[in-house]
């Protein structure tokens, strides 16, 4: 990373969008505070703080973070399964949260795939039922017979052949990877524009994972589908997503094209994550401890300043008192860290 970067003071997320094309999804200042009862006291758990990002049509964006980062909460809010404490979600410029209940039209445009392949299919219904229902609900077909034909096509599109035979099976008769494909077929039934995938491959074996990721990528390419891929696995994020957003303790730390974020991580947390990942090329060597402290972020009544301060190897006094702001360090590259503040010459000390 060169030293003479254009240092622009706090840049809003929308600054990176080319003015010609409006993003499909714009998340603006999303906040989520949960009220947790601890005996008689009520505590405030800050799951998400001022989260803002965009997803363009046909783009795959990864939301990466560990448990407690808020990534799943963000997905559920965008899918309108949970209401946020505050913030806006714009679909083609229109704030969908302005309406109390999600419209059928919204449901046709934004779909979701879940983590547990078995849990996301109802054990008492056949695979075919799961795919037919959205077709019927959204009146995309004229008759049950037509629904069955469309279902067969969708199942075959996701690699479950022969479609009509798989449609008659129950979820427990399929393997994990097959169930996940069925869930994808269900999501595709309404021809959505955006698919939220919440850890879709975490519960699958490594050899099956790649198949499902490849399928998602193909679908993105042929149908111009936008994908928001939630994961804790940086490797899958890089494999599937064009852009990666790193979350920590409900805050966006860093974002940019996946390759750049992984090859030249700017935020100390990203660097820590990357260095901690197992590396088979280090086989036979000494096991290095991580370059940074472990520990869960404090989400309940968080301390002022940067949430990562307690663990950061590059922490300064300013980090504990002042919350860092977002800095644009290169076209499309944002980092939320005092190390990149205007006029600062400090850089993270961790090797990449």
């Amino acid at each position, binding site marked *: 990373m060169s030293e003479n970067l254009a240092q622009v003071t706090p840049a809003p997320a929308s600054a990176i969008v080319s003015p010609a094309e409006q993003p499909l999804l714009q998340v603006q200042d999303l906040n989520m505070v949960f009220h947790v009862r601890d005996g008689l006291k009520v505590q405030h758990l800050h799951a998400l703080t001022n989260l803002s990002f965009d997803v363009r049509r046909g783009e795959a964006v990864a939301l990466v973070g560990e448990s407690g980062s808020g990534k799943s909460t963000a997905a559920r809010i965008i899918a309108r399964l949970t209401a946020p404490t505050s913030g806006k979600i714009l679909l083609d410029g229109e704030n969908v949260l302005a309406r109390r209940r999600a419209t059928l039209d919204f449901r046709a445009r934004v779909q*979701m795939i879940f*983590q*547990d392949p078995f*849990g*996301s299919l109802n054990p*008492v219904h056949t695979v075919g039922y799961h795919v037919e*229902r959205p077709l019927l609900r959204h009146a995309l077909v004229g008759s049950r017979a037509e629904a069955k034909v469309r279902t067969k096509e969708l199942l075959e599109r996701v690699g479950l052949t022969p479609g009509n035979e798989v449609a008659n099976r129950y979820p427990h008769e399929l393997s994990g990877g097959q169930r996940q494909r069925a869930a994808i077929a*269900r999501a595709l039934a*309404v021809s959505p524009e955006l698919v939220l995938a919440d850890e879709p491959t975490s519960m699958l074996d490594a050899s099956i994972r790649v198949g499902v990721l490849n399928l998602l990528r193909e679908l993105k390419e042929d149908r111009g589908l936008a994908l928001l891929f939630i994961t804790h696995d940086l490797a899958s994020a890089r494999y599937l997503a064009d852009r990666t957003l790193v979350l920590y303790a409900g805050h966006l730390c860093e974002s940019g094209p996946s390759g750049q974020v992984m090859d030249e991580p700017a935020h100390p947390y990203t660097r820590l994550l990357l260095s901690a990942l197992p590396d088979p090329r280090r086989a036979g060597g000494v096991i290095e401890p991580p370059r940074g402290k472990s520990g869960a972020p404090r989400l309940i009544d968080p301390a002022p300043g940067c949430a990562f301060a307690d663990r950061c190897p590059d922490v300064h006094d300013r980090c504990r008192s002042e919350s860092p702001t977002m800095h644009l360090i290169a076209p499309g590259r944002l980092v939320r860290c005092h190390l990149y503040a205007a006029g600062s010459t400090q850089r993270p000390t961790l090797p990449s």
Partner: protein
Amino acid sequence: MRGLLADRRARIGFLLLGVSLAIAFIGSLFVHDPSDLVAKPLMPPSAAHWLGTTGQGQDVLAQTIAGARASLTVGFLVGFLVVAIGAVIGTIAGYFGGWVDDVLSLIVNVFLVMPGLPLMVVIAAYLPPGPGTIGFVLVLTGWAWTARVIRSQALALRERDFVHAAVVSGESHWRIILWEILPNMSSLLASSFIGAAIYAIGAEVGLEFLGLGDVSQVTWGTNLFWSANDSALVTGSWWTFVPTGLAIAAVGFALALLSNALDELGNPRLRGEDDFIKRLRGYGLRAGGATPVLRRTPGGAVESTVATSTARAEAPNGVARVPGEPGKKGETRVQP
């Protein structure tokens, strides 16, 4: 359903229940009108009257059968209503949560807290006596428990991903409740029904025995009431209450068997474990200690073994030699 019938206990239960229902509803065609005075009172069982006569001179067999019709009808109807009301309220409370749940749970809790028996007595005293009143009272005091149980299950199912997926697909609440959640509660509903029916039959008999029913109607409870009233124990006329008692016990037993079988259906692992323990015992080993070691001799010749059912030598280390099934693992091995 198929799985249920595979269980021997369930089959016995169904059979017993079926026989009871058949006797109750068809048997009545073959006997006297139970209210008819047919012979001398308190006659022991004889060829003319298989179960003897009551203190009034009525045929006990006819009364037992007529009683079955009345009591079973009330029992099953109450069971059904209790589950229906409990399911509606419990599912709505569990699914919607929030203030809906708060209000409904409050109502459920109030009904749960109300003392059943005194309430039954008071209400029965105000309304015209009869099985209908009893049924009403039983439903009123019985629905809350089932509602509670179903609410818990609905709460748990609400959080399953397939429900979230249905919401994201745009399904309406009612569609989700009826088609996604309720079908997953079928075994709970079935076992609640059986439990409610057992409760209803027992409670109904109890109330009528206390005289709170319409004593001029023939039900199992009134049979027992009259039997006590006519000092059956003192006169030694056991035939006036034993048949009814046995009939109640038989139906209760049948329902309990079905309930047991249903429980196991929901937990197939139990069956597998019993099976395993039996097999190990056949090899002279016990389960529950260290993992047993069973050495199979290679397929083909059967070696004489330690573990046959006649020669039950206790293998001290949990090791037994059993014959390999010839041809079971018929693999070709390459000799390097």
